[in-house]
């Protein structure tokens, strides 16, 4: 069995030609394989959305090559788009139309015959848990429902690849979990997922493999576990201090572990064993107002690679 990549980017670059030309994506390489959930993790402005728009064939590639489903993004935009599902960051649902009409119209854009389209609408409304909302106006839906409808809409053409640009930004925890569960179901059904996010928990939950983007470049690539192993320690000790002795305590902690990050609200010590590091800190006479040992996450990977936290 061959596993030719579904998406293949080589030296992919995007420059916006405005009064001040701006290069959002600076020569990135990556591959997305059939059936995997591939994530692009990065802070706002890292070039995630620009990359997604090029893959969606609505943004011309400035230089480099981008092949999707074996076709060239620059030449075969229509044929590629016919086989993609796109969940944009901006909610482009039509608030003048009902839930069902939104699906019907979108299906017609793909030229799906009316009869097949009506059946598929029923299936997708059930899939997105909106069966009883079909005749309601989109304006009456909650944020989570709208996002589920946008995903249902993106699935109308039974796409081979689903592109999701920050799918859960702005949703409450319950709505996020329901959405993740639906995306997980899609993955089980064999749909290839490509998503951008600035939430590390989302990347850990959903992605088999991911790239970390910073300032238009890919700075790391691998599975969440790989990345944590390569770019962070097993555990992390977080300390918080009272404001008046903060600086003094930070100075005392210097050198306890190989890597120490000073963040605005806390001190982060990277260690193989959090409890023994905490004991070592206590032995130095450090009295934290709060101490917390946890496992390393992608947030720590991001901090290591870029020196910044993901959500600021």
């Amino acid at each position, binding site marked *: 069995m061959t596993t030719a990549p579904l998406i293949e980017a080589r030296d992919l670059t995007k420059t*916006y030609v405005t009064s001040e030309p701006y290069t959002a994506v600076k020569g990135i390489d990556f591959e997305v394989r059939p059936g995997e959930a591939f994530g692009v993790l990065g802070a706002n402005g890292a070039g995630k959305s620009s990359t997604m*728009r090029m893959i*969606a064939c*609505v*943004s*011309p590639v400035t230089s480099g090559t981008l092949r999707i489903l074996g076709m060239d993004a620059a030449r075969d*935009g*229509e*044929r590629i*788009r*016919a086989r*993609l599902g*796109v969940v*944009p960051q*901006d*909610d*482009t*649902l*039509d608030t*003048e*139309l009902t839930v069902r*009409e939104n699906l*019907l*119209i*979108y299906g*017609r*854009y*793909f*030229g799906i015959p009316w009869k097949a389209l009506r059946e598929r609408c029923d299936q997708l409304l059930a899939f997105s848990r909106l069966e009883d909302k079909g005749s309601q106006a989109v304006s009456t839906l909650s944020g989570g429902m709208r996002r589920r409808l946008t995903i249902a*809409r993106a699935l109308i*053409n039974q796409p081979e690849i689903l592109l999701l640009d920050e799918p859960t930004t702005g949703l409450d925890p319950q709505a996020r979990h329901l959405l993740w569960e639906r995306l997980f179901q899609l993955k089980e059904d064999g749909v290839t997922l490509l998503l951008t996010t600035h939430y590390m928990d989302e990347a850990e939950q959903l992605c088999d493999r991911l790239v970390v983007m910073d300032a238009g470049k890919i700075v790391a690539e691998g599975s969440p576990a790989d990345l944590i192993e390569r770019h962070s320690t097993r555990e992390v000790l977080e300390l918080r201090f009272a404001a008046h002795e903060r600086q003094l305590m930070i100075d005392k902690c210097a050198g306890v572990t190989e890597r120490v990050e000073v963040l605005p609200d806390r001190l982060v010590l990277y260690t193989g064993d959090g409890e023994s590091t905490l004991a070592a800190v206590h032995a130095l006479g450090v009295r934290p107002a709060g101490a917390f040992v946890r496992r390393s996450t992608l947030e720590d990977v991001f901090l290591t690679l870029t020196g910044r936290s993901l959500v600021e």
Partner: protein
Amino acid sequence: MTTTAAVRGLTYWLFRYRRTWRGSIVISVVNPLFFMIALGLGLGKLIDDRPNPQLHGHTYAEFIVPGLLVAAVMQTAFLEAAGPVFQSTRPTGNYRSASATPLRPADIFHGHLLFWLLRAAQNAILFIAVCACFGAVDLVHATLLVPIAVLVAVAFCAPASAWAVTVDRPAKLNMMFRFVILPLYMFSGTFFPIEQLPSWLQPVAWATPLWHGIDLARGVALDTATLPLTLIHVAYLAAFTAAGIAFARRNYRRQLYV
């Protein structure tokens, strides 16, 4: 392929129109009704008292019907092209969602253009029907005026949408309406022959597409049309349409594929 893609784009606008058709029909009927009462019965009585060579033996109502029709069609064409195109192009607009599908920017434009064409025909038929009720136009001439009105509508929709797709602030739409569309309405021969304008203003009127539309429609309605002038009017409006479509296709591509 291209035609079917444009029809798919049109489907969207027809779905939207299912929500608003009643109101739009009321406007299409009330607008000519008020004009016929005010200008045909009111002002017209005053004017028809004296013989006027400009009217070629017709009543004032018969004289203004083609002007009012073409001007009203232009106004509707601008209002339906400019605002909706601006809204559709915004980051959350329907053009954006359509761009993610196999439809190309040109298909999206053509679909919207088809909708304007249908609306213009509907609007013109209702307008003429109201005027016919006042006896200001007969059936034969009315039938001839509809295609002229549709040509004028397309000649305005195409350039208006080519411009509106690039607009960044809604205030610009109002400015265009106030400073371009309204003066055209007033000074292109809608209410009076442009020969009444100061002589230096007349060449300006000749250059406007609305005057060509009105003069074409009036010539047909009053049986004063000559072949060369008719050809010039049609060619001018066709050229405006062709240029508008070419610019729109280019601008839609540039705006939707950033």
